[in-house]
């Protein structure tokens, strides 16, 4: 079994698929396992195929896995869509409520037709078919119905003990039915003996929102959009506990400008969005750049262009994050590679925005944002709040009103910053080119001084290393990714090494300023470089070529069909490019 189990439940959207997955995942997580859950869903409220995949492992992973061992199918389409993912010896549980479910003759799969809905009706209500399915699963993998009790209680105790009891009883009915009628069993991985004190089951969006709260962000201005809305939900719940506020703006233009205004006034504020909203924010990126106002924008990327694939993952906003908006101004682009990094980078985004007085774009994606995974720590003790060159009232002592040089041409390109309410710090933040005091002007030499000053400020960037690297510098093939693909690339690397190849892995977590010095040796020394990206143009590969050169050895492994990258996609492409390379 290789230390893991892939389980999936599928059916029509709106019939409780997510809650079935959640109950299973939470239970395993609490038992000490590691769960990683990926939701496949559509942009509609009811109907259409949806599924919830959970990979259970004995260690933390960053991927939902290629393989499926158990499939719970509430309809025919679930069988059709997911059959190819089944491993040999896998088990399909098919609800026979909607008549006989057919299945292909391919593969060595145990097909078990079970009246999940019928059994649920017997136990009180058809909606409990999900709990019956959970019970069936428990029987297959050697768990007991009681293992699910704590999660069932948490979910249903508000509705009363009777509801808890009937749900648990539905689990028992499914459990008993399977044991009476079938004998195929699959093993869970070995249960970890010690559970870490901070064994957390959390999504990238939740970790991002928590990071923002920890950073002292007290204003979120946002407009609802999949897959970023969960950040808003989380902060709507918790910001008020700390005196803060979530404003649901009328559109994303309003949202980003509210965030800018709040930052200008000295609070920490952000906006969270996805591609279409991010496109609307472009003009304000330039305003934040020239007015040197801190600004944090979270872009949870989804399939584009335009409305594109609203419920599918993609990493195609990189060009936009790097180059969107007219004119030239500095910006920082962070692409967290793990759930822990979503937290850490969210904290750091606010520190960097204030240190460098420029926009910081925290670009995750649907896969990172909405998938939940078990992790063993979230380093809250190293959270720091650094506000850069924000002046104190005592530093303004003796400065007469109108004398404060907000845009002082400084060596490091960063100027002292005052906030409204401070005496002696009066200045105008503006989108026009300006002199050192913030007065609009068109003097050529001052224009050049100010442009160069702003361009210079990121030269001292040092807070984040920008990439994680593993393997030798002179690998046969070096896999390069950014953001959410860290887990899948890491596993592909292991698979390729098991086939005797020498493989390195570079995962970029800061795209701007680009960590060229750190990455260069891994590109220079590699036989072949394979840039792995969930987009169609190879936007990261373009950055590698632009920043480092080595055009001849950079190849791409691309996916943009809406599904997340799989290990086998990378392994297949890596073997192709190595074969071509060896012929040359």
């Amino acid at each position: 079994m290789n230390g893991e189990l892939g389980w999936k439940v599928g059916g029509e959207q709106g019939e409780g698929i997510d809650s079935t997955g959640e109950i299973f995942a939470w239970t395993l997580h609490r038992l000490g396992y590691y769960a990683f859950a990926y939701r496949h869903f559509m942009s509609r409220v009811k109907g259409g195929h949806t599924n919830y995949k959970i990979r259970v492992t004995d260690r933390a992973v960053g991927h939902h896995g290629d393989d499926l061992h158990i499939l719970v199918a509430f309809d025919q389409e679930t069988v059709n869509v997911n059959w190819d993912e089944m491993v040999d010896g896998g088990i399909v549980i098919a609800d026979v409520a909607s008549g006989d479910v057919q299945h292909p003759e391919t593969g060595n799969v145990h097909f078990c037709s079970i009246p999940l809905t019928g059994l649920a009706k017997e136990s009180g209500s058809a909606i409990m078919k999900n709990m019956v399915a959970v019970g069936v699963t428990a029987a297959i993998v050697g768990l007991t119905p009681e293992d699910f009790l704590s999660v069932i209680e948490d979910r249903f105790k508000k509705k009363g003990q009777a509801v808890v009891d009937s749900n648990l009883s539905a689990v028992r009915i499914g459990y008993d039915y399977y044991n009476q009628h079938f004998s195929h069993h699959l093993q869970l991985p070995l249960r970890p003996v010690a559970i870490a004190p901070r064994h957390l089951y959390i999504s990238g969006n939740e970790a991002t929102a928590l990071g923002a709260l920890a950073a002292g962000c007290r204003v979120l201005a946002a407009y609802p959009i999949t897959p970023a809305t969960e950040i808003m939900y989380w902060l709507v719940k918790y910001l008020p506990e700390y005196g803060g506020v979530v404003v649901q703006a009328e559109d994303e233009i309003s949202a980003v400008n509210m965030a800018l205004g709040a930052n200008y006034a000295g609070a920490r504020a952000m906006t969270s969005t996805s591609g279409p909203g991010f496109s609307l924010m472009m003009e304000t990126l330039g305003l934040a750049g020239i007015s040197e106002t801190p600004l944090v924008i979270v872009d949870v990327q989804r399939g584009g262009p335009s409305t594109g694939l609203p419920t599918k993952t993609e990493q195609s906003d990189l060009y936009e994050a790097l180059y969107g908006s007219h004119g030239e101004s500095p910006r920082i682009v962070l692409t967290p590679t793990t759930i822990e990094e979503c937290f850490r980078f969210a904290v750091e985004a606010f520190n960097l925005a204030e240190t460098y007085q420029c926009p910081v774009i925290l670009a995750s994606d649907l896969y990172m944002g909405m998938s939940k995974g078990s992790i063993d720590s979230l380093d809250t003790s190293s959270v720091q709040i650094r506000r850069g060159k924000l002046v104190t009232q005592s530093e303004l002592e003796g400065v007469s009103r109108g004398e404060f040089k907000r845009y002082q041409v400084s060596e490091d390109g960063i100027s002292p910053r005052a906030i409204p309410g401070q005496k002696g710090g009066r200045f105008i933040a503006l989108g026009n080119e300006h002199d050192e005091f913030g007065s609009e002007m068109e003097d050529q030499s001052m224009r050049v001084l100010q442009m160069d000053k702003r361009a210079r400020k990121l030269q001292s960037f040092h807070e984040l290393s920008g990439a994680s690297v593993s393997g030798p510098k002179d690998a046969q093939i070096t896999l390069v990714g950014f953001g959410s693909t860290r887990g899948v690339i890491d596993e592909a690397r292991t698979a390729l090494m098991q086939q005797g190849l020498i493989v390195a892995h570079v995962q970029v977590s800061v795209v701007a300023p680009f960590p060229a010095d750190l990455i260069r040796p891994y590109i220079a020394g590699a036989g072949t470089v394979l840039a792995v990206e969930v987009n169609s143009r190879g936007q990261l590969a373009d950055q590698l070529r632009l920043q480092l050169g080595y055009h001849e050895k950079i190849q791409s492994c691309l996916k943009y069909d809406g599904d997340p990258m799989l290990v086998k996609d990378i392994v297949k492409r890596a073997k192709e490019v190595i074969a071509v390379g060896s012929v040359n």
Partner: protein
Amino acid sequence: MAVLTDFKGEKPTWCPGCGDYGVLNALQRTAVDLGLDPEDMVVVSGIGCSGKLSAYFGSYGLHTIHGRTLPTAQGVKLANRDLTVLAAGGDGDGFGIGMGHFIHAMRRNVDITYLVMDNHIYGLTTGQTSPTSDPGFVTKTAPKGAVEFPVHPLSLALSAGCGFVAQGFSGDIPQLSAILKRAIQHKGFSFVNIFSPCVTFNKQNTYEFYKSNVVKVDDDPEYDSANLGLAMAKIEQTQSIVTGVLYEHNRPTYEDSVPNYSKTGLATAQHVLTEADFERLLTQFQ
């Protein structure tokens, strides 16, 4: 106590005779009269001749992008509710590109004051039709005369639930100053539309036109600014050529309505989570 010179910023570069001088003067007088401190005030301005107001007024300022004064100003206020926050722009900025924000700012009712310097024309870009241009008004972009129905800011504000709706004229500084005083003191979003003639590009909506046509609500002893119906009727009767406070009604501000929102300026406090906070927050993930 701040004096008039404390509210002077850069030397204005508006055309001689521009209505915007009157707005600036009235605002400076108002600030002195209210005993405000220029460094506890922020003027957020948009793009256009009116957008220069933030630089010419002596407070902190944010000269933002076209049409986005209101979201930006609301952001400033939400970051620090102890500040006096004004948004200022023109008819193009507010009723053209920024119209969406105008309606929603009135619904939201954040405690800021919005001044629109309405000259019925795009001035800084040297004379094109604006959303408040009169039908038939000839401009560079409407050489045969404007064909679109103009925006009616006052009736729009009343129907959007705005709690303070007024109109002033930059040729009557004492009245404008009195209006601005009430607007700034009003708790909640206050809107003041100001006839601010463009002496260079608009030969139709001139000082003379307003001086001879404007009706002042204060001259009507029967007028009651708490009565929405009277306000609507007055606007209708005068074809909007009316000045004074047309409507004032207090309803809870956004800041006072949002659950648990800080009673003091967020920007002036430390926001650090303790390990106990983290333990509590992380329980939901365990």
